[in-house]
């Protein structure tokens, strides 16, 4: 197990990190829902986040294992959990500004842009954290990780875009 994996992953209690991970996507979906006047984003935002991760994480493990550089399955699972919590914590810090920008604007575009930027930034931070937790060493494994990250972010962005078009 890596040194990074043995340390406490966050400066906040584990329960608080998990709670933020669960609540933050709902909060951003709530901002979108309040603007659009429909409830769908409340459930759709967390569904996209957790659904895409659940659907693509096995591919990451298989690919890095085939490349000969995957940590044990438990370590990969733990790294993904830490990255998800990183996503939730980062997003929680952006919820206040996103809410303010949305409430103080007169156009739907500002709400979509602010929510998208917050989710995108949190996702990139989560990918950075995942890369550090996995500590992949070979070029092939890192290349596979990059491809996986691009695919995962692309799928999420596409689903979020479709949601935005649907509700706005």
């Amino acid at each position, binding site marked *: 197990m890596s040194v*990074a994996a043995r340390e406490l*992953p*966050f*400066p*906040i209690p584990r329960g608080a990190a998990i709670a933020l991970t669960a609540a933050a996507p709902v909060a951003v979906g709530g901002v979108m829902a309040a603007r659009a006047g429909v409830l769908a984003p409340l459930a759709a935002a967390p569904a996209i986040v957790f659904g895409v991760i659940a659907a693509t994480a096995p591919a990451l493990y298989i690919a890095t294992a085939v490349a000969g550089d995957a940590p044990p399955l438990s370590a990969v699972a733990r790294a993904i959990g830490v990255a998800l*919590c*990183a*996503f939730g*914590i*980062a*997003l*929680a*810090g*952006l919820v*206040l*500004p996103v809410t*303010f*920008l949305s409430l*103080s*604007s*007169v*156009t739907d575009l*500002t709400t979509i842009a*602010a929510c998208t930027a917050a989710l995108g*930034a*949190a996702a990139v*931070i*989560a990918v*950075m*954290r995942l890369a*550090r937790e996995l500590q992949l060493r070979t070029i092939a494994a890192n290349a596979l990780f990059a491809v996986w990250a691009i695919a995962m972010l692309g799928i999420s962005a596409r689903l979020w875009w479709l949601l935005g078009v649907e509700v706005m």
Partner: protein
Amino acid sequence: MTALVEEPRAVALPGGARAIDMIDMLLRDRAGMLARVRAGTDLHAVIRTMAATIAVALVVVGAALGSFRGGVQVGYAAVKMPLVLLGTAALSAPALSAIGAALGRRSRLSSDLALVMTALAFGALLVAACTPLLLLGRAMHIGYHRTILVAVAMFALGGGAALRMVVGELAAARAPGWRSAITGLTIVFTLVAGQLSWALRPYLVRPQSVDVPFLRQVEGSFLDAVPEAIRSARGIYREPAGRWGSAP
């Protein structure tokens, strides 16, 4: 005696230091002030003092900006200007802690808030120190757009100094994710400050405006306003002057 000399600078002030001593330390010994924040010494007092410093400094700046129109606008701008910076700090500081924490930085919301408030207080004091330039411009009747440019330059100076202070402190700590945290804070701060200042306008009030409202009706956003303001400064008006009479 030697032990006293080798005490960290963070304890240069006693825990219950007077506010004026803390402000003096901020101006004369920023490294010491930052060390105090880093050590977590009496953070609530630091936050309170810095919030009061920002409020007082920006009341002065707001009043100077409002003096362009005079009358009740002096009071309006003096009230609104501190709200912009304090509101922005309250909305933006959690982003610094959250992004840093997500990337493994050992951050605490209270110490990050104290750091941001300390840096903003320093920036606000610099802006307040530039206020005579605004008054000079007023005395020389340099006009509306030039007054805005002077104000923008003043706030750029104060903002740059505040950002340099935060960057310097986080860079010195070398914690993981500090660059991302700074980038996130800067982006969030810029967007929120822009939108909040836009929502609370006017500050100067255009000369041809008849009314002096406390707040303009919500229309568009800060980002919409930037190209409009550039066109307006070049004398190209999209709408009749009356409609845009009191912006920004």
